[in-house]
């Protein structure tokens, strides 16, 4: 099939594409360097809708190349350059166009179509330039890699090859050209390491320092200076020098290091990084065409994989659904929050006070039972502010402002009388919390929202003794609160829309991913995690060696093993939530005796560090008692997944959240469960667990899988 036919067929599969135009404009270069054809990539919208490449867009670029190719051949132009609309270069393939693909052959065509078009830039009879003026990602970066030379603006805020993060490989030349341009280890940093570190973005300066761009200019006259530089290159006034690439053992070492990075992130559970590394290894011989062919195959295989579909689904959840929380009341109902109260001055309360002050920029008052505790809490916050100042994260004025905002008081009436939002973070005991709320109600305004950071107690019960229970919401953060994005917002039985809308408004300002949940035991993340842990702990208690259990869950590629997670959460907290859940659902949750012993002995977990190695703590082993049933890795995994699938099914039946997507959003943002699992339900669906346990899949076909 010709490129034109290929793209035409692809475009038919994707009728909704926002087509990017490739405008060709001719200009006279400075220094009498001749005429240049400048291609501007522009989808016709402003910067809030970044330019992408779908098949229709590739066809437009192909047409532009038809024109400049002919002009170059006729000697009418001396060079070709590519740049973007204001603030955006191009952010790569339109992912919606990937989601609709059902056939391997069509997936292959997308890769080949891109290559066919981009390759023509390198094949032009005149030099080509990419002027990275703004955000560039994926295919956007790659279109520039096919050019002879590149410049970048210091103002570029985001530049990346995020394919591996999503479950793809940079398949329009990225895997092949980048290592041949800047060497394999820098290329692997961009393609593998950054991508697998929450899709870390490069800035303009990094792009230049890595050698991806040959020159760097400030945004104020970036295009003018890029054109001047191009003129100097074309007239020979400037020579472009690039670092020599070591194609010997260093290349193999770099790829081996890349595999270690990938292993540390996904433990072999997701294929994209490994496929990218295979291509990088292959192109050591600088055979670009062979590299492009390998990219096509890898891309098509991955597009047809469950991991990629789950990855795209997860990406859409965190990019789109997270911004419009499902079931949240209308924003207009929210009341303004101009002062915040925090009851309790312990570590959690202090962390919350800092977060509220930084994000809401309103006064935050901490209270506790005595002055010493209050002083300690405020002191902690002020010390944290000083740390931010020392790191240069905030200015001295900003530090002064924040310190002024966070104060402590023993006088609740004065402190909270004009507060709009008061959150409690006191000891996890129903009676204590009910008393706190009763005290608060006596001093706060009638519309002040009362929030609780409880991780497992009933919010409805907590509100039950108040005159105005409609103002109570659950506001469950995840530790560490400054890092984990999730915030479970709990609607209790009598919570009204205005209070709930206010809570969502606060969450938005806190830059948290808010998910609405029903007032059910342990809400979402803890309920699922504990069910998962329950199965794992059960297997251990019954006699399966810890090593087997650890290996059993490796295929999931979780960020950490359940045993390490237990250590991180703390056995005492795990025990507390476990007790709540066992009380609520005794038929499904048990309180592990061994866990109880661990807590009683004051142990942090099963492991100790010895000579830099993690080893099982003999003292712990001596403490615990085990049965004699030894399960295989497969049996352990099946048991854990079945438990999780069952629990999620029940949660959806109970209406704990609106849809399975919210479960996944919670697991991604609250527990760090990976994109290639899509949170968890796409994985349970594709592995057949959902059907085995519940008789049906969680998600409609096409949502996180190949469309029917």
């Amino acid at each position, binding site marked *: 099939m010709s490129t034109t036919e290929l793209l035409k067929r692809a475009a038919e599969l994707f009728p909704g594409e926002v087509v990017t*135009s490739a*405008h*060709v*404009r*001719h*200009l*006279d*270069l*400075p220094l009498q360097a001749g005429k240049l054809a*400048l*291609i*501007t990539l*522009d989808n*016709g919208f402003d910067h809030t809708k970044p330019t992408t490449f779908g098949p229709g867009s590739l066809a437009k670029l192909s047409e532009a190349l038809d024109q400049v190719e002919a002009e170059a051949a006729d000697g009418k132009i001396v060079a070709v350059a590519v*740049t973007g609309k*204001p603030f955006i270069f191009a952010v790569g393939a339109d992912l919606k166009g990937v989601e609709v693909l059902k056939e391997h052959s069509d997936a292959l065509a997308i890769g080949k179509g891109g290559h066919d078009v981009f390759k023509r830039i390198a094949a032009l009879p005149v030099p080509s330039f990419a002027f990275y003026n703004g955000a560039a990602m994926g295919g956007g970066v790659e279109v520039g890699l096919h050019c002879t030379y590149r410049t970048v603006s210091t103002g570029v805020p985001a530049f990346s090859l995020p394919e591996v993060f999503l479950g793809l490989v940079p398949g329009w030349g990225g895997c092949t050209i980048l290592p041949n341009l800047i060497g394999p280890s820098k290329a692997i940093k961009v393609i593998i390491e950054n991508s697998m570190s929450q899709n870390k973005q490069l800035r303009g300066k990094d792009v230049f320092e890595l050698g991806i761009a040959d020159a760097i200019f*400030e945004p*104020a*006259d970036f*295009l*003018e200076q890029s*054109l*001047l530089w191009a003129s100097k290159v074309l007239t020979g006034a400037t020579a472009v020098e690039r670092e020599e690439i070591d194609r010997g053992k260093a290349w193999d070492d770099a790829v081996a290091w890349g595999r270690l990075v990938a292993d540390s992130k996904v433990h072999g559970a997701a294929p994209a990084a490994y496929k990218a590394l295979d291509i990088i290894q292959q192109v050591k011989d600088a055979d670009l065409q062979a590299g492009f062919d390998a990219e096509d195959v890898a891309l098509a295989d991955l597009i047809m994989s469950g991991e990629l579909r789950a990855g795209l689904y997860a990406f859409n959840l965190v990019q789109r659904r997270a911004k419009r929380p499902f079931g949240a009341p209308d924003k207009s109902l929210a009341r303004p929050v101009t002062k915040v109260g925090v009851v309790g001055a312990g570590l959690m309360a202090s962390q919350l006070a800092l977060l509220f002050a930084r994000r809401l920029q309103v006064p935050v008052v901490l209270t506790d039972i005595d002055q010493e505790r209050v002083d300690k809490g405020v002191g902690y916050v002020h010390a944290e502010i000083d740390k931010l100042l020392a790191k240069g994260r905030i200015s001295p004025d900003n530090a002064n402002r924040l310190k002024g905002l966070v104060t402590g008081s023993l006088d609740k009436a004065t402190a909270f009388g004009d507060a709009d939002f008061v959150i409690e973070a006191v000891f996890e005991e129903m009676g204590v919390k009910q008393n706190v709320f009763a005290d608060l109600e006596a001093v706060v305004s009638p519309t002040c929202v009362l929030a609780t950071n409880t991780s497992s107690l009933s919010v409805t019960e907590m509100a039950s003794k108040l005159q105005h229970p409609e103002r109570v919401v659950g506001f469950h953060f995840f530790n560490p609160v400054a890092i984990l994005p999730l915030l479970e917002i709990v609607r209790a039985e009598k919570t009204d829309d205005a209070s709930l809308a206010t809570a969502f408004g606060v969450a938005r300002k806190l830059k948290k991913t808010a998910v609405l949940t029903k007032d059910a035991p342990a809400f979402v993340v803890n309920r699922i995690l504990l069910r998962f842990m329950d199965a794992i702990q059960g297997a251990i208690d019954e006699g399966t060696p810890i090593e087997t259990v650890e290996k059993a869950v490796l295929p999931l590629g979780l960020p950490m093993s359940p045993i390490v997670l237990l250590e991180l959460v703390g056995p005492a907290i795990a025990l507390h939530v476990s007790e709540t859940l066992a009380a609520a659902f005794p038929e499904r949750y048990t309180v592990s005796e061994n866990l109880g012993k661990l807590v009683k002995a004051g142990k942090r977990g099963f492991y100790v560090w010895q000579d830099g190695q993690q080893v099982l703590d003999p003292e712990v082993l001596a403490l615990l008692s085990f049965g004699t049933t030894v399960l295989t890795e497969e049996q352990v995994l099946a048991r854990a997944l079945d438990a999780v699938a069952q629990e999620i099914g029940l949660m959806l039946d109970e209406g704990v959240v609106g849809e399975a997507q919210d479960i996944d959003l919670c697991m991604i943002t609250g527990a760090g469960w990976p994109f290639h699992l899509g949170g968890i339900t796409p994985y349970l669906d594709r592995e057949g667990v959902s059907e085995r346990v519940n008789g049906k899949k969680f998600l409609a076909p096409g949502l996180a899988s190949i469309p029917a």
Partner: protein
Amino acid sequence: MPRTARDVVFVDGVRTPFGKAGPKGIYHETRADDLVVKCIRELVRRNPNLPVERIDEVAIAATTQIGDQGLTIGRTAALLSGLPKSVPGYSIDRMCAGALTAVTATAGGIAFGAYDIVVAGGVEHMGRHPMGEGVDPNPRFVSEKLVDESALFMGMTAENLHDRFPHITKERCDAYAVRSQEKAAKAYANGDIQPDLVPVSIRNTNPDVGETGWGLATTDEPMRPGTTMESLAGLKTPFRPHGNITAGNSAGLNDGATASLLAAEDVAEELGLPVKMRLVSYAFAGVEPEVMGIGPVPATEKALAKAGLTIDDIQAFEVNEAFAVQVLAFLDHYGIADDDERVNPFGGAIAFGHPLASSGVRLMNQLARRFEQRPDVRYGLTTMCIGFGMGGTIIWENPHFEGGK
């Protein structure tokens, strides 16, 4: 406190290519403040010896100080150009003589000792800000007959000038305009203009206008080389039926910006900054607003008197060509021939365009070029007429002067 006035020098000046105002003009999608920013950055780039933190003032003129020409554009442009935050700036308005006034006001400050180095320039994006945008003239002007109603319309004041000087005919004006175009084309061919132009990236999203996408402005858009008496003869006279003023013998409606670098002479010397011109004197004068085009005459008289010079000492003239009739009225006053080679040798606003408040520095750039090429010339002047009945003149000395040969 005893004080000595310091000599002020013109170190350097640059400008954007000038564009035609309106939807088809090159700058239709470009902001006015961005035009200024390109100029300031080019000045800094061209003068690597200039420590930017030593700039004491950024004075930028604009006639219509609204939107992208508002917000104290001297300050905002300084920040947008990446100058240190410690460098202050302000806005100036004296209509067409905005940049000229930016130069004189800051030069005065340098002489007084308040500044060492300044940036002075101007901008007018007449496409985004048409003449008269948002004006609200006091009704007393009309009720008390303080000025004739025509005073607000520059084209009408130019027609009025023809009434005052009936011997200046439309034919003389057209012939002058043709020469201006010829001289400008020749100056371009000789590369006399381009060295002081800052290329500006320009965007066009309207396919009706031409190629879309990003482009680069490198030359003045308004120029009409090949203009002839015949082609000018048939043009409409929009300000008066069967009048004299046409689009051909006056400057158009234009977009553009300029910026110059001035310094105390001792500071320029200390820093090794080049000196293109030395300021001798300046003056502004008022005339009847109905005939504002005569303004350069009394302004020049004053400036000459302050300098202790006579018109015979001036061997190079850069007269702004808002209207040919206004240039000819000036030349007639001094008995200078219409085609005297000392006057606007590289062409003028009729060819290049006249983005109101920016034009003053364009005149200086061209005078500096003349000085550079003619070490036999000692004194020159830049002069322009100004709306509401004013004129402004600066007399400059050529630092390259080698003594009368």
